[in-house]
């Protein structure tokens, strides 16, 4: 994570920008159902808050510069270093224009892609809000927690994330849980037949909120793609729910905190029991399931 530096290169997953077919329909799901706070639209993008950040989710219709995952970088020096490392490894890296930075609510950024073609924004000084977070319903969301990413080339994608300072905490089959701070993981790479965001995860206060949201989704006839469940490797409880366009949003809580000491990544087999301690299974999302389930 720090790679011998006094400060880490990257510090958080700070936003997801999603390209959707019908932003208004998706926006209703994100606010009324999932429970994020909708904030003022800008440049045709609908934005949402989940914590003290200015925005953590945005919805747009433009696939060309509409979808990306924002990774917060320590400072411009770290940004330079990451840029050099990625270029050396053969990844295309482009400096963001002032317009692109404005659309992302950040001061400076490098725009790149992982080996699977997932757009990744490396951003410095993402905007915070002076007003506290005020959600539309009591879903108990505490903060934007992290992402699951579909990977077409997990070996090369790992090279990408390691260049940013991420380390593998544990493996389930070839699913890699990547650590960038004190928590077990903020990013999980799932081998897949396509690229794209698998899920955006939001931390809630406790098990109570995981379960309350589970019953809320059942009553609202929203599809739960997996959960309530608990990842054995990270001890994180989860509920994955599906919105329009197959978008998966997750409520999570209880992830293991690591002590920062050197730690060998553990290997779990790709079986249902490695993916959920409680016994939940995903029938329809292949990346979340084990073969033969």
């Amino acid at each position, binding site marked *: 994570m720090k790679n011998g530096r006094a400060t880490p290169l990257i510090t958080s997953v700070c936003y997801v920008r999603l390209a959707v077919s019908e932003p208004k329909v998706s926006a209703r799901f994100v606010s009324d159902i999932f429970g994020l706070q909708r904030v003022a639209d800008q440049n045709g993008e609908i934005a949402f808050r989940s914590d003290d950040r200015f925005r953590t989710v945005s919805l747009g219709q433009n696939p060309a510069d509409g979808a990306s995952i924002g990774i917060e970088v320590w400072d411009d020096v770290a940004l330079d270093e990451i840029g050099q490392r990625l270029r050396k490894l053969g990844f295309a890296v482009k400096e963001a224009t002032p317009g692109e930075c404005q659309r992302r609510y950040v001061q400076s950024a490098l725009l790149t892609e992982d080996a699977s073609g997932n757009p990744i924004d490396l951003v410095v000084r993402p905007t915070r809000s002076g007003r506290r977070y005020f959600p539309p319903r009591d879903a108990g969301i505490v903060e934007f927690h992290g992402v699951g990413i579909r990977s077409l080339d997990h070996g090369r994608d790992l090279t990408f994330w390691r260049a940013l300072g991420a380390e593998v905490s544990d493996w389930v089959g070839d699913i890699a849980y990547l650590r960038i701070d004190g928590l077990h993981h903020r990013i999980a790479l799932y081998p897949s037949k396509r690229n794209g965001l698998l899920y955006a995860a939001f931390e809630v206060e406790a098990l*109570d909120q995981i379960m309350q949201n589970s019953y809320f989704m059942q009553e609202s006839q929203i599809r739960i793609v997996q959960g309530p469940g608990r990842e054995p490797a990270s001890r994180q409880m989860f509920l994955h729910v599906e919105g329009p366009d197959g978008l998966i949003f997750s409520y999570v809580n209880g992830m293991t905190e690591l002590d920062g000491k050197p730690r060998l990544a553990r290997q779990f087999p790709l079986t249902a029991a490695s993916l959920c301690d*409680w016994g939940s299974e995903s029938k329809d999302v292949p990346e979340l399931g084990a073969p033969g389930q």
Partner: protein
Amino acid sequence: MIQLKDVSYVRLGSPDLESAEHFATACLGLQIAERGKKDLYLRSDERAHTLCYSEGDPNHQTVGFEVGDEASLQEAASTLESLGHAVHAGSAEEAERRKVKAFIGFRDPTGNHIELVVRPERSGRRYFASRDAGITGFSHIGLNSSDPARDERFWTQVCNARVSDRIGDIPLMRVNAIHHTIALVRAPKAGIQHINHQVETSDDVLRSYYFLNDRRVPIVFGPGRHPTSGARFLYFKGPDGMIFEYSVGVDEIEDEATHRPRQFGFEPTSFCMWGAKPAGMALPNN
């Protein structure tokens, strides 16, 4: 006043001991302590048994409570008789079948068959479950009541139970520090409404939810959380329609002297703060 120390056991009649044994071990997860000719003894904790299936009518349901000693037992018998309850003094053979030193039997005002026991047996060997359900012990029962206000008076004035909380006019009553040992449930006739076993963690509650669902055991309520006791729970149906509950995290009443029962409204959120709705199980109705 009759000083109940703790709930000790439940005895259930069953026409089919084989099914009862299968459910108790493969689903519920208790340990077989002993198979008698007509009795199946099951353990859930350090006690020699806490549940006994006896070949017979499933309407025969008995709850045993432990009292301090034989003098207390005699005193209880006189108290009950003076109040007009017929008291059965247990024979030595009957006591042996219950693995207790001595006992008396009577019916509460609703007609529930209650036994007061002295020196129920403990086991020298630790409890070893038949499946990893995380059970830590038999903890409480839901008891039918045809008149909750009258029965609350019986349990709190003739016996030493104290009301911890009420949902509508349904009292949750304790006999020790644990939030409740007896939960009255309004029902037209006598019977045990549910049998509770505590488990180690909320993980166990959720694991059992998926486990029992897989085995097509009817889940009748939960997974959920009671706002009264704070316990995370799961109710499911066993043989002869008996409802069993796993729960974890039942509050203890910290200050016996100053605790005041809280009043909860008679509505679904008073039974589950997560939003679970009972299915195939009646909530205590008004």
